[in-house]
């Protein structure tokens, strides 16, 4: 742990490069949005409420998910991870929802 911390301090994210900032910003906006969108769909399937209430509460929570994703994207150790974690998590959630269309649209 101590060794890792030292390495991090010395290496640090080299943010100076504009392209690096642009990658993270894009991951936060697009990767983050995709995860939030997928979470909304998944919660619409999963919440134990009436249909309209499921949609509303899922949508209202999604902005928190997006903000948390943006924090993760900027904190992630590598740009590569900043992209694949939110996209993979989003794909899994959206995939599960698409498998049960009738259940997601139940009254």
């Amino acid at each position, binding site marked *: 742990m101590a060794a*890792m*911390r030292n390495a*991090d*301090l010395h290496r*640090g*994210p080299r*943010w100076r490069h504009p392209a690096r*900032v642009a990658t*993270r*910003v894009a991951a*936060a*906006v697009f990767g983050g949005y995709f995860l*939030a*969108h*997928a*979470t*909304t*769909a998944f*919660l*619409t*399937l999963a919440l134990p*409420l*009436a*249909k*309209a*209430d*499921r*949609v*509303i*509460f*899922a*949508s*209202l929570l*999604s*902005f928190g998910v*997006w*903000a948390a994703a*943006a*924090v993760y994207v*900027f*904190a992630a150790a590598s740009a590569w991870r900043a992209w694949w974690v939110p996209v993979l998590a989003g794909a899994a959630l*959206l995939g599960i*929802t698409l498998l049960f*269309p009738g259940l*997601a*649209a139940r009254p």
Partner: protein
Amino acid sequence: MKESFLKSMAWLHTWSGLLVGWLLFVIFVGGTIACFDAELDDWMRPALHATAAPQTPRFDAAFALSRQQAPDAHVWWAHRGDSRDRALESYWVLDDGTEGQVALDPGTGEPVPGTAGGEFFFTLHYNLHAGLPGMYLVGLAGMLMLVALIAGVLIHKRIFKDFFTFRPRARGQRAWLDGHNVTGVLGLPFHLMIAYTGVAIFTASYMFGGINAAYDGSVERFFAEAGDFYERPETGEPLQRLHPVDPLVADAERRLGVPVDWASVHHPADSSAVIAFGTDHSRRVAWDMRQVSYDGETGAFLHQSREPGAGYTSYAYLGGMHMAQFGGPALRWLYFLMGVAGCVMIASGLQVWVRKREKRVAQAGALSGYGLVLGLNVGVVAGMPLACVAMLLANRLLPAALPDRAASEVAVFCASWILAALWGAWRTRRGRGWRELFGATALGLVAVPVVNLAATPDSALPATLARGELALAAVDLTLLAFATAFGWLALRRPGRAVQAELQARLEAP
């Protein structure tokens, strides 16, 4: 690990803030002014200042005008005059989404001279007058603001101590940073609430994963079910005669249990026409979206919305928190002051960015990314207030009979902003842009009450104070208060460090 996390959060804060900082400033100025949109609407229609809003609404007069202007509109909508804004307003929306609006004298039913009104700032606030793309842009800016706030909290190890630290006499960057921290931390609960509820209001447009999964992507079906709004399909048969609207008001008020605030007629040319009534949102935090609907031909009662479920009530509560229609003038002033704090937070944050990179900014010259940031800072932060003032002056100076008067006010707003931004960007390289624009804004702010007195004496301070119309007087008095603040900004002696820097800049070859 912790150091590098803080560092990345600092970057997240910097970049999410800088990317949308100028846009957020525009949205904040618009939203802050829109706290008093109805009062400003009223102020900008001096023709009505001698009249009192009638006790009973005259919707039929408004719909008669809608019929002249847009006989086969998708919907006509009319707002009765009230104590905040006495004009009777007539709106219509065509099938292709085109909108029209005319304000009428609530007593005579005659149109009054047009104005962009406080409504201009409200629309600027939520879609920048750019329709759907503007609404999405504002949503993205709101989301990035939320992210910048969260990252801003995470980087503050000493958030409580920073709140009590303000060193206006300190060197440039330090003072701006303290100003940014004070307004940011002081207003933090408000800023978090306003950013979150702001994106939440348009959640059906921004975040449609749930509507896709549960309603096949149909926003209309979702809203009809969640809010229990009545709709019926068009028949294609022409309507014989629209039932008079005003005689139905008493029944609608009895069913709703509250005074009716607006009336609408859906597809007024079709035999499926529906007359609906609703109330305002002043009685509780959550929006009161209940409606009563009547048949357009016979006036027979059709439908009354039930109280919505938990989800829609929560949504209406968040929307109500954002729109601040529920707490009377005291709450509107609180929101207004917090909005001003937000404008200062954004403006000082943008200034910190420049000050931190002072050397690189000075070396990079005008045609560079740094030059662009400098120019946008002065053009937006110092240019927009000047444009707002110019618009208020235009409201009193443009001839009353001018056709399309509202559009002319907006043209004055845009033209003065462009000129101010160009002037500021050009002069700021010599260290003068900010002061000159602030000075011009202060003069303009003083000029508004004076021009008001000369052009429309019945609407100026002596008359409004004598009649006890405090909302009208408050507009003039608030402008004078802001004139003092802008005058102070323009005349403030620069600190020693800034003077030395200016000297160095002028002596440089």
